[in-house]
């Protein structure tokens, strides 16, 4: 029987794992999805159906404008490259008519690359002189683009263009823009996943940026948005508790209230809360009131029913015992049912708080959009999904850690359940009970309540 726990199999029906193994698996449970996400993002041959443009180009036969970072399909990208090569062939064979104005535009092909390399500033985008020297440097190899690394094909085009540009002299002058048409750079890109699945690092970077970036005047910072969202959820939840807990307990303990309240509540909960949003805005006007009301509407009816059920689950014999000890109706409610259901009520409230979180997004969209949802909405419309994910994950983390914290708190709150206390809980207990313990000690030091024998 003295088998070491390390030699036990990991997978065994109906047996608890040791706490160290349980801890490892908790970490793995988070690491696994992250690993899958990373593999799909950073291994090009797994999926990557798109090309993310690193060097854009404009087609003569299309008005669509593509910019660095845009996603296009692989097939379309190939067509795109062929079309540009065709245009270059036409230039080479002299079929393209001479236009200086067009050449000024072609000079700027290199601008986005030069800006990305920080060779020029964004203001110099239309500065022909700067761009002239960029072309020279690329063609002569004085500057080498690292991101993207220019293809041999494009370097050749750069050299051809430099030949045309330098025809009037090595230095920039009014005559530097040639009459003969410049060649077009062939678009470059690298395989990428669709924009709705950004890479983990990009998401992390956007997330950090979102909280550290200076915001424009009149705009809310991400911290303010977060606080606002949390406030909506917790206010709504608090109001629900104030209404739901007493009603639920009454329904669960007194048949009169159960018959009077529960049938209607049971019916009402099937009407989706969001359908009341316009009505709530009409009644409560803009700002936060209708949003909080929506969270309440979505939570309170479930709360009444769940708490009524929990109340009914209390061991009936405790009520009988209390009655034989002379407890009055009021004492049954406050001295037996109240403390008796408290641990289960606490768990119910944890679940219902999660429930309240699910109403956040809809609540923030009604009336005047606000909080984190407004940001998600705006960025999502612009397809800036790398900005959207950090906020979605943030909402998840707030909910998850609130719940974990409340779960740890359960043991110090209900010592009479005799649940085992783990090291993590002990730390939380120490923090949470420090203040009340200190207070109690201080009081007892001044005035001992009972002389201890």
């Amino acid at each position, binding site marked *: 029987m003295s088998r070491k726990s390390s030699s036990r199999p990991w997978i065994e029906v109906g047996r608890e794992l040791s706490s160290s193994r349980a801890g490892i698996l908790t970490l793995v449970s988070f690491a696994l999805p992250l690993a899958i996400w990373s593999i799909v993002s950073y291994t090009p041959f797994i999926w990557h159906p798109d090309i993310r443009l690193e060097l854009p180009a404009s087609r003569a036969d299309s008005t669509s404008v593509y910019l660095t970072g845009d996603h296009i399909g692989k097939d379309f990208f190939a067509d795109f490259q062929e079309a540009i090569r065709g245009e270059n062939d036409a230039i080479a064979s002299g079929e393209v008519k001479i236009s200086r104005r067009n050449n000024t535009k072609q000079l700027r092909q290199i601008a986005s690359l030069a800006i990305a390399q920080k060779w020029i500033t964004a203001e110099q985008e239309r500065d022909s002189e700067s761009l002239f020297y960029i072309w020279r440097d690329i063609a002569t190899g004085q500057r080498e683009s690292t991101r993207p690394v220019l293809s041999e094909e494009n370097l050749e085009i750069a050299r051809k263009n430099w030949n045309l540009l330098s025809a009037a002299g090595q230095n920039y002058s009014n005559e530097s823009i040639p009459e003969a048409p410049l060649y077009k750079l062939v678009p470059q890109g690298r395989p990428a996943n669709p924009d709705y699945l950004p890479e983990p690092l990009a998401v992390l970077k956007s997330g950090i940026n979102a909280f550290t970036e200076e915001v424009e005047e009149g705009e809310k910072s991400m911290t303010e948005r977060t606080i606002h969202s949390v406030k909506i959820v917790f206010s709504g939840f608090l109001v629900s508790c104030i209404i739901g807990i007493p009603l639920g307990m009454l329904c669960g303990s007194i048949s009169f209230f159960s018959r009077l309240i529960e049938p209607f509540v049971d019916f009402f909960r099937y009407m989706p809360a969001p359908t009341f949003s316009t009505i709530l805005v009409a009644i409560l006007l803009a700002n936060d009131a209708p949003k909080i009301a929506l969270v309440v509407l979505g939570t309170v009816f479930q709360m009444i029913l769940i708490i009524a059920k929990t109340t009914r689950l209390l*061991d009936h*014999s*405790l009520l*009988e*015992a*209390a*009655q*034989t*000890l*002379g*407890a*009055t109706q009021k*004492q049954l409610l406050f*001295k*037996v049912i109240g*403390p*008796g259901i*408290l641990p289960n009520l606490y768990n119910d409230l944890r679940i219902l708080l999660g429930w309240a979180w699910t109403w956040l997004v809809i609540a923030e969209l009604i009336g005047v959009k606000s909080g984190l949802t407004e940001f998600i909405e705006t960025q999502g419309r612009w397809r800036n999904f790398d900005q959207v994910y950090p906020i979605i994950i943030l909402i998840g983390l707030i909910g998850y850690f609130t719940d974990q914290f409340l779960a740890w708190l359960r043991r110090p709150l*209900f*010592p*009479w*359940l*005799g649940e085992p206390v783990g090291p993590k809980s002990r730390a939380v207990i120490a923090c949470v009970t420090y203040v009340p313990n200190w207070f109690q000690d201080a009081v007892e030091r001044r005035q001992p309540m*009972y002389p201890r024998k």
Partner: protein
Amino acid sequence: MSPDNPATKLPDYREQSPIVRERFERFHKRPVVLEVKNLGRVFESSNGPVTALQDINFNIKRREFNCVIGPSGCGKSTLIRILAGLDHPTSGQVLLDGKPVLGPGADRGMVFQGYTLFPWLTVKRNVMFGPMNAGESETEAERNARFWIDMVGLSKFENAYPYQLSGGMKQRTAIARALANQPRILLMDEPFGALDAQTRFQMQSSLLEIWRNVEITILFITHDLEEAVFLSDRILVLDAHPGRVNEMIESPVPRPRSDEQCVHPEFLATKQHIEHLIHPPNSKSDTPLRITRMTDPGDTVF
């Protein structure tokens, strides 16, 4: 004791030694605490009404220790629940000190088989529950609680929560909690039924000791014949289907009680008589089991 055939040698259970007879003479002069008059209880079921109790009449004297015993289905539990006020009779009435019982109250303490301690309260707080609800001050209730906890021998555990106690300790707490209310009568519904034999015997002795020293009347439900004979002054034997009073037996076993008395002739005679009342000898319908021999030839245990 001769295990072969004790029946032939046992005296009549009604034979009382002079000391016992004298004690019962004094006993019958005591006032009645609890009177049950023509009590009946009919339950409505899908198969029509079921009579659980029919025309029950008996009374309990002051400071009597009475055990109620009967076969399963005799309505013992229904009876005690009606006495406690947790259930209501469909006919007849229960009088406590001459006043009808209309609902549960602190004047009738109850100890349940399932302990029913409040798990969120310590032993001390459990015992303080009744007096505090009755308006006793915290200090007063606490001092009294300590007294009762000490009496049931749990002083070291006054700050323990119920989950930390053994079954016997839980039941001691429940007894202290009921006694702290100082009820007129203590109703006990198979209180030791869930305990192991050793603990049960200790609890029986402790209970008798408490009963001797505290002004309390006890009505004790059990299905254990020895327990009934060991504890009681009188034993109320009920019939089943419907539950009716069969006999109120005066125990001929002298007090104080000790475990040696379990083999005395008057003890065995009483036990055997109750045994016959509950399981009449002619009604034995035990068909022998039909078991095929499945061991190897010669592989015998006896």
